């Protein structure tokens, strides 16, 4: 499958996951495109669309919690930022994603 086709299918699959959780794809189309492209590459190289902004450890139990969309496993943190760590997803009511700060979970 071509990268573009896989990007489209990830978009379709993930939209169905994040909508019930109160998230949507960021209105920043360029950011979304870059991140999906990175995820397709990670999937090809490492077997799953891992988070482009979080590092794997090689411990399966930990690494499976950073397969996109990882929102269910970082809910309180992401809800506080109103975005996921990468900013691929934002809360449904967000129109200005650049205004959302990125801060670590211990500052929630």
């Amino acid at each position, binding site marked *: 499958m071509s990268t573009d086709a896989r990007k489209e299918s990830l978009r379709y699959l993930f939209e169905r996951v994040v909508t019930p959780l109160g998230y949507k794809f960021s209105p920043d189309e360029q950011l979304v495109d870059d991140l999906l492209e990175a995820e397709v590459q990670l999937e090809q190289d490492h077997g799953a669309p891992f988070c*482009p*902004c*979080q*590092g794997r450890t090689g411990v399966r139990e930990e690494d499976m919690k950073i397969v996109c969309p990882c929102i269910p496993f970082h809910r309180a943190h992401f809800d506080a930022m109103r975005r996921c*760590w*990468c900013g691929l997803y934002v809360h449904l009511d967000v129109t200005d994603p650049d205004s959302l700060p*990125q801060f670590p979970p211990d500052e929630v």
Partner: protein
Amino acid sequence: MVDEVFVYALSTCPWCRKTKQWFDDSRIAYDFVDVDKLPDDEQDAAADKAYELSGGRRFPVVVINGEVIVGYSPDKFLEHLKGWGGGS
């Protein structure tokens, strides 16, 4: 007054790129490593170092004069840059 800045980054992470861009635009010298671009045998050590400093696995991890900042956060960068009147 020379600030020591080091950025642990992933090549796949847009906020890591924005962080480097911010230091470039601010004309502040920094060193960095794209952990995922290192040769296989060096990746683990660099990643472990970033995880240890940050207490997590999120990138970027920015070390300014020994202080660790996790995430793209210009306000916090400024706070810790002595050359900008921040730091202690």
